[in-house]
């Protein structure tokens, strides 16, 4: 522990700020050390793969926001990043809606589940990136192909986890819903979806990382714009500081999406976390 325990209640406020400061210190300490090591380690590097970090930083703003005076609409952020993210969101949303709807349907019938499960397991097991060349046959290399690739790759974990969640619903809860004669729509909204939500969220989380991979790959493979396209362009033209900047942008994007996902899922699953703690805590 970094904060010594000061006795007495008067020091309470001070202790809180101390704790916050210590927490912040722990948060930034190692990342700072690592960045510093990169900075100084690469400062006099003449290895082309490992340019001075100073160069990477210097190239960053001009690369992504354009030279001073460039309108935002012409910057790489607007031209490459925003469309990439929009395609990701579109594909992911389609996968969420389709996967959950199909999962609820399939999970509700034993026979249907047994009928389709082996085929679904196969689709889940196909490494999603090889869908890119297949779907390119049908859809060319436009936006539709990229959105479909993302949706098609993301849908399986969502679907299969939803099926699992619906199947694992407590039979006593099902009986309760039957006894109180919940209609089909209320049953889905009040019983099936919340009951399966822990598994749905697990599937959605797996799907999100697949989605990001597919977003990048769709653009690396065949595209004229997008984040993945730009990064590969930088690499092919040996614009190494710009390429590293692109890697960082992708990393930040991944971080941002995963934080957003966590905030949303924590809100959806607040009851579940409490429920689990209560189960574990005793009784």
């Amino acid at each position: 522990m970094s904060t010594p325990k000061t006795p007495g209640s008067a020091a309470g406020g001070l202790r809180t700020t101390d704790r916050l400061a210590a927490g912040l210190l722990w948060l930034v300490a190692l990342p700072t050390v690592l960045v510093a090591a990169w900075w100084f380690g690469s400062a006099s590097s003449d290895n082309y793969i490992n340019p001075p970090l100073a160069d990477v930083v210097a190239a960053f703003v001009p690369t992504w926001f354009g030279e001073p005076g460039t309108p935002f609409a012409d910057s790489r952020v607007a031209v490459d990043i925003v469309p990439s993210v929009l395609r990701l969101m579109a594909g992911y949303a389609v996968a969420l809606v389709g996967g959950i709807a199909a999962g609820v349907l399939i999970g509700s019938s034993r026979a249907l589940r047994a009928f389709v499960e082996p085929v679904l397991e196969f689709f889940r097991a196909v490494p999603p990136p090889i869908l890119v060349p297949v779907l390119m046959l049908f859809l060319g290399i436009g936006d539709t192909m990229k959105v479909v690739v993302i949706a098609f790759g993301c849908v399986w974990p969502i679907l299969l986890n939803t099926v699992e969640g619906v199947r694992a619903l407590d039979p006593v809860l099902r009986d309760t819903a039957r006894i109180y004669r919940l209609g089909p729509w209320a049953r889905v909204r009040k019983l099936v979806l919340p009951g399966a939500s822990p598994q749905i969220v697990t599937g959605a989380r797996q799907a999100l990382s697949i989605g990001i991979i597919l977003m990048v790959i769709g653009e690396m493979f065949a595209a004229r714009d997008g984040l993945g396209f730009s990064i590969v362009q930088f690499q092919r033209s040996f614009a190494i500081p710009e390429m590293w900047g692109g890697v960082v942008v992708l990393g930040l994007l991944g971080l941002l999406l995963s934080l957003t996902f966590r905030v949303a899922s924590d809100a959806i699953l607040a009851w579940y976390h409490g429920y689990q703690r209560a189960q574990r805590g005793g009784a």
Partner: protein
Amino acid sequence: MSRPIRPRAQVPAWVLGAAGILTFLAVLEAVPRSGLVDARFLPPTSQITAALAERLRGGDLWVALGQTLTTWVIGLAISLVAGVVLGVLFGMVPVLRRATASTIEFLRPVPSVALIPVAVLLYGTTMQSTLLLVVYASFWQVLLQVLAGVGDVDPVANDTARSFRFSLMTRVRTLVWPTALPYAVTGLRLAASVALILTVTGELLIGTPGIGRLIGVARESGAVPAMYALVVVAGMLGVAVNLLARAFESRALFWHPSVRGEVAA
């Protein structure tokens, strides 16, 4: 009074499943033949099967399969060892645990495909290129599970062990490892499928040797049925990996009261 006890006729699940597969194959045969979908883009099942049979007779599919499996196994082994060692280390030493927490949170969501250009510059189209992606992606799966497992060690038992001045190695052996093992096995299962995805991805995009590259070659040469046949092979490989990993998990943990779900990452 005699009552006939008749079990409700229920078709076993495997029969339904087999029927599902056959239906799927039949639809895939019928759809391109009927002209609903262009047969140049989606050849009927029979053509895909023929292409698959031809490939299976030739040697290069088997070679590629071996290359893919080699990359997968090596990548998985590196991630497993690194993830377990670092997970136990970070998990057991509070200072390290706190210091690394934020860095892990930052690095974990970085999509591994972001490293493709770096890998290409470093290793070109050799297997190492793909290995880099595979290790980066699957390492986190193992590390996070092991960290959660070590965090699950009963604090009272841990304090007791420390108060008896058990050596670090003894503590790892008797306390930490048994608690963390189920988590590590789950991590291995998750890592196994992620590693396969990234193996094939690397082969397809970078062109390192393996099934993925064959798919790329088939696409470029317009051999559509062959491409689908290879997709089927990759899918079957994925099914096999999933089944093996699940079987291994339930076998390794059969003694465990609850075969655990993955920790929410």
